[in-house]
């Protein structure tokens, strides 16, 4: 069994998660791009942190678990930003628009 620690008020946390869900659904309805990004994605990050810290008890966990997760997310960022500059490029000698150009698909087949 896990080490003894005080359990937070889970129902209160659940209630706030639902409030944040409502805001994240309502925000994009305004159809203002920055509001959409803040409410949909910013609140998703906040909800993730609340679930991880309070429900998964990450705030009580030993630091090794934090290090493990931070390293994984860091590597994910490295994989993304490492290739994004190449993939997001839409010009160059070897570049082909493989989404629009069916010859790419035919070659692979």
């Amino acid at each position, binding site marked *: 069994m896990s080490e003894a620690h005080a359990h937070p008020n889970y129902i209160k946390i659940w209630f706030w998660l*639902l409030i944040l869900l409502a805001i994240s*659904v309502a925000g994009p309805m305004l159809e203002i791009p920055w509001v*959409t*990004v803040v409410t949909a994605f910013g609140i*998703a990050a906040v909800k993730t942190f609340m679930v991880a810290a309070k429900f998964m008890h990450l705030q009580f966990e030993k630091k090794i678990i934090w290090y*493990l997760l931070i390293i994984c997310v860091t590597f994910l960022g490295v994989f*993304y930003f490492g290739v994004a500059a190449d*993939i997001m490029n839409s010009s160059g000698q070897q570049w082909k628009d493989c989404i*629009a150009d069916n010859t790419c698909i035919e070659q692979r087949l």
Partner: protein
Amino acid sequence: MSLQGPIATHRMRTGIPTGRLAVWWVLASEIFIFGGLIMCFLLFKFNNAPGFEDADMTSTAAGAFNTFVLLTSSLSIVLAHAAAEKGDIQASFRYIWFTIGGGLVFLLVKTYEYSSKIYGGITLTENVFWSFYFTATGLHALHVIGGMVIMGMISFDVRKNHNLQRVELIGLYWHFVDIVWIFLFPILYIANF
């Protein structure tokens, strides 16, 4: 063969119970699976790949309801863990099955969404957006099913007052499934940015 269960249950070398450490390792590896999928989605979206305007065709109400269901089931599994810690095995058993019920409701809504899309002629190969939609939500649904099966197995152990520490472990897995959906919901159902 030991009748007392796995050796790992009864020892720890890191200061963290071995089972809990193992579950965190699994979740760390899952970060790459779902994180990689979501990153690829964003790469295509920011590269203006065609088809992403189809995010308008997903049902925000269904996605929001499913988010509510998973958040509520996260609450019930953590209450199951708290009950198991207090030794209230009947309450823990009930909370676990409430969580399984939440998973079932989630899958029913997903089935309705999938069938309405497929009957409307939209499948995995329609365009890049729908490829991601079916792949990401399908993979997530498989994780939900797996979690439900394991929760069921653990619940019967709990009823016999065995291996109560496993309620926390499956709870960690279920919270991760919930977190993945918290990110999938805005990018697949809301994202008009």
